[in-house]
Structure formats: C-alpha cells, structure tokens
C-alpha cells in the first residue's frame, strides 16, 4: 500500500509542476533558515571540541566592585590574584583552571611579521578543555610552576609560522622570549572565547604580575573555569563560591561588595546580552524557544493553507476514489504521504544549500577558524522538522476532506 501511495504521490507531484515548485520553494527556504539557525546555535552553544564538558563547566568571567556610596569599579573582570586565592582554592570542583583572555601580539621570523592571539593558561586548562592534539602534549603542572619555556600552538600557526616544517621541538619567539613547541592542536573558533587562541603558554610568563594584591582588572583580563564531577554538583560549587566571597579581604576601605558569579555558559551568555541581571539562563532559553515556535508556526500555517486549497481543488478526485473503494483512512494516508514526500524533498534541497552556504562562510575566513558543520544531530533535527511540517500540514486538510460523503466530494463542495 505504501508503495502505491508513493507512486500516486510522485505522479501527482509531477503533474502539478507549478504547485510542486511553489511548495518546494517555500519549504526549502523555511527549512534552510531553520537549519542555518540550528547550526549557528550549535556552533556557539553546543558541546563540541574543545568544549565537550560545557554541561558541567562553570566559569567566572566578570567582576565588579561596589563602594559604600554605590559607585562601581571599572572592572569588568576579576584579577589573577583573586582567582588564584579565592577560586583555585575551591574544594567542590574536580578541577579549577585560570587563564587569560586572548591578546593580540606581533612576532617576527626572518623579517616576516606574524599576528598571533596568545593566551596564558595553567595546566588544568587542558584538563577541562578537550583539545584535539594533532601532535605532542600540553604542558604540565611542573612546566608551569618551574617556568619552562614551552608552548602549544594551533594548526594554523604550524602552517604559517613553520611553513610546513616540523613544529614540535622547534622554537618560536613570543613577546621577546623563545619557546619550544610541545603540542599542536586543531584550530578553535573565535566564537568559543574561553578556549580560543593561536598560541597557549604557561601563565607564569604573563607580563601582568599575578600576585599583585587587587581584586579586579589585570591585563588582558582573566577568567576561571571549574569542572564539576557531575552536573548535579553545580549548585554545590556555586554555593561554595558564594561562601568564599563572604570571606574576601578587601585591600582598601573603599570597596564593600564584590559582584561576580560562577555561571554556566548559557547563563554567562544571557548576562552578556543583558537579558538578565543575574545571568539566569532561563529568559534566554524562553526567548529562543518562543522565536523557534513562531518561526515554525508561520510557515506551517502557510503550508496548511496551501495544502487545504490544493486538497479542496482535488475534491472531485477524492469523491472518485471514495466511490471506488478508498476509505477515509486510506485517503488521509495518501495525502500525508504526498506531503511528507514533498517536505522531505524540500528538506534535502535545504540541506544541500545549507552545506554550501556554511562551506562558503567557513572558507571565507570572515570569522577566524569558524567551522560550522552539519553534524548528525543537526541533520536529525532537520529531518524531524521536515516530518513535522509534512505531517502537520497534510493531516488536517486530508482529514477534513475525507469526512465528506462521496457525492459531496464529487460535487466539489467543501462543507
């Protein structure tokens, strides 16, 4: 029976070329945008290398001090001294790491100029993040504490700076000091601000004095990441951090309160968008969800309309089929299969277009090391979206039509 449905559907779609084209155009366009949005969200928020453990990672990326008279420090980040003293000492997280945000430096090799984004990190940085090492290893706790001149570089730097030569074991000059390359990792997108850099080096080489007693600031800005053993430990970590904040000793009398928080990625993001003062992720998720629903609803209503009028136009066909033995269920089946086929074809077109467009964005180097990929999850989501459209826009009109008495359908009435 299904094969018959398929045959009928293909015949009908081929005969109604204009309608098929219009539907396909609408469906492909809608699904294309949906797939692109999903892919962008996944690229920015999804767990993917090197951030595979986002669901159990907390970060401290901002900080402000408030004075007695309500004035605020021009933060906006916590100092390395604060992170070292009050964050690295936390007991509840499995691992705690502190590192700087990236900083653009210029270096020369044989009079060729290179621009590099560097980042100072501890060794725990590489425990929390899952960098894919193409060669070599990250630096160790001992490497960091004894200030060994070792660095990790990304794939792009290996190609540019070492020009295809062996990188591991060779030296590279960064900010006037020579470093030995001990690891090469895959490029990481700049949209992933916590891991992103071209070159990573031990934080003990930082030009900023790490022990200067101040609670905020410190070039180029520092942050901490905390890995929970399990997602369920996150509240406990937050709690311990809050308790820690109460114990903070203020270096001078001016400041009375610290404003900072250990947040998940989504919480930090919604705070940056100023959606929520506390960095609560719920408003962001709700807004995204509502947008998604609206986004899906409008084209669905449109499709239901197109399908309704198309099916009504074919009322005489429905009458004939009923008169010769099609049951209501069979007819609903036929129209639903027709719709699912057309949406799947539309989805396939959208997917191909999306792959093409994402490929263009990736290769245009518009955003450094951005790599939008259509993984199986996005593919699966798209498929579900397509099926939802196909079913929803076909079932209602078909059901309505199939309930008519055969004579009424033959007469072309839609009452």
């Amino acid at each position, binding site marked *: *029976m299904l094969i*018959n449905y398929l045959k*009928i559907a293909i*015949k*009908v779609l081929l*005969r*109604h070329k204009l309608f098929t084209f219009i539907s396909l155009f609408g469906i492909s366009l809608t699904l294309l945008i949906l797939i692109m949005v999903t892919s962008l969200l996944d690229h920015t928020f999804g767990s993917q290398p090197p951030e595979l453990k986002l669901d159990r990672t907390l970060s401290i990326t901002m900080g402000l001090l408030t004075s007695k008279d309500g004035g605020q420090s021009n933060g906006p980040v916590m100092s390395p001294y604060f992170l070292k003293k009050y964050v690295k000492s936390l007991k509840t997280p499995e691992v705690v790491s502190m590192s700087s945000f990236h900083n653009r430096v210029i270096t020369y090799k044989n009079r060729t100029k290179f621009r590099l984004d560097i980042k100072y990190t501890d060794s725990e940085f590489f425990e929390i993040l899952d960098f894919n090492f193409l060669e070599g290893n990250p630096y160790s706790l001992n490497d960091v504490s004894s200030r060994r001149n070792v660095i990790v570089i990304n794939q792009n730097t290996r190609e540019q700076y070492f020009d295809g030569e062996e990188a591991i074991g060779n030296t590279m000059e960064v900010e006037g000091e020579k470093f030995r390359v001990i690891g090469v990792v895959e490029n990481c997108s700049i949209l992933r601000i916590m891991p992103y850099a071209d070159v990573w080096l031990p934080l003990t080489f930082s030009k900023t004095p790490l022990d200067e007693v101040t609670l905020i600031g410190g070039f180029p800005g520092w942050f901490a990441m905390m890995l929970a053993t399990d997602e369920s430990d996150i509240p406990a970590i937050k709690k311990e951090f809050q308790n820690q904040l109460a114990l903070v000793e203020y270096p001078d009398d001016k400041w009375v309160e610290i404003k900072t928080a250990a947040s998940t990625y989504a919480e930090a993001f919604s705070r940056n968008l100023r959606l929520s003062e506390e960095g609560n992720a719920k408003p962001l998720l709700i807004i995204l969800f509502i947008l998604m629903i609206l986004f899906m609803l409008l084209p669905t209503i449109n499709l239901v309309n197109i399908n309704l009028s198309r099916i009504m136009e074919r009322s*005489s*066909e429905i*009458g*004939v*089929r*009923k*008169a*010769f*033995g*099609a*049951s*209501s*269920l*069979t007819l609903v089946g036929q129209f639903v299969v027709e719709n699912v086929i057309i949406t799947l074809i539309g989805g396939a077109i959208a997917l191909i277009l999306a792959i093409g467009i994402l490929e263009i964005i990736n290769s245009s180097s518009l955003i450094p090391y951005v790599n939008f990929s259509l993984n199986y999850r996005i593919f699966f989501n798209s498929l579900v979206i397509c099926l939802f459209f196909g079913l929803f826009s076909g079932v209602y009109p078909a059901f309505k039509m199939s309930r008519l*008495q*055969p*004579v009424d359908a*033959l007469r072309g009435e839609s009452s």
Partner: protein
Amino acid sequence: MIRLSTIEKVYRTAKIETIALKDVNLHIKRGEFLSIMGPSGCGKSTMLNIMGLLDQPSQGVVEIDSEHVAKFSDRKLARLRNAMIGFVFQSYHLINDLSVVDNVEIPLLYRSMSGSSRRKLALEALDKVGLNARTRHFPSQLSGGQRQRVAIARAIVGSPQIILADEPTGNLDSVMGAEIMDILNKLNQEEQTTIVMVTHDEILASQTQRIIRLFDGSQVN
C-alpha cells in the same frame, strides 16, 4: 440484492428545504437490467447515489444482501463500494492528472494485488470497451464518447456485481449512445452483471427489463 425501503431524502440549505425523494421502495434482483426515468430534478441521481452508498438517506432503510448499511463503518462501506459496485457518472469524473490506464486501475488500488496484475486487468477492461489503443492518453485528449468508455472500463475492471450508471449517454450523440448501450447489454447478458441505468431516452429504456418512473421525488406506475 439491494433493497430500498421507505426512503426519503431532504436537502436542507439555509433558507429552503428540498424534498428530493419521498417514500421510495425498490428491490433490485441479481442479474436485472433496469432503468430509472423521469424529468430533470425528480430525484433520479439522488436515488442512484443512495443505492450506490455514495450518500445517506434522511429516512428509510438501505439493505445490501439483507444487511442494513446504516450501521456499517467507513471501512466496511469502502470495501463494499470497492468489491460490489461500479459507478458510471454522467459527467465521467475521470481524474485529469492520471492517464487512461491509471484511471481504470483506481478501483484495484484499494485491493491487495500486484501492480502487474492490476495493469493486466485494466488493459482487459479497456479492451472490452474498445479503447485499447489509447491507454497512455490523458482524459483531456479524448472525446466525450471515449471518456465515457474509460469510465465504464473503470466501473467494470473490478468485476462488480452491480453497475450503477447515471445518464451514461446523456452527454453523447445517439450513435455513441447506442455503442455504450451495447457494452452495457453485453455485460448484463454475458457476465450476468446487474445494471441500474438512469436515462432520459425512451428508446434506450425500452431495451431494459424494467422501468422505474420518478416524478417529483415519488415513484409513479
């Protein structure tokens, strides 16, 4: 095989109420060839549609092989229409998107059989109505007489026990009308198919075994 008892059919629209049939009683026996006559608008099509399970009466009982159809489910009705009844409409009602042979295959789509045996039966039915040369055409490429023959092929392809034909010659000239009549006569005589035909034509009606006359929704004798 089909029995109509005290059938009444009322069409209600917002303002007017049309009584299309009142107190109609009829028993159609197996193998019969009967015709229904009467002026336009007297309820002939309504009666045929009720007989063919395409419409429901407002009052009265329709029985098929002594079973009340009123309590049949949608699926059971569909199966009965499929297995037992072949309809021929005055305005053909072919599906324009499908080729001649695909149109003829429609009743067989709702039976479990292979595509090749479906095709074979459809071609045989088209052969019986003398249309074996135009199976790949589309309805819009055929004349009225040819279209009606496709419609007859579709009605007979599933070997139904009864054929209900609503003015099958109404849109055709007398020569083509006679040809259609020959096909129906042959079906009745050679395959013992029961036939009920609505017609305006006294000459065609006189070739049938029994004539039912309707006037203003009621039977007259």
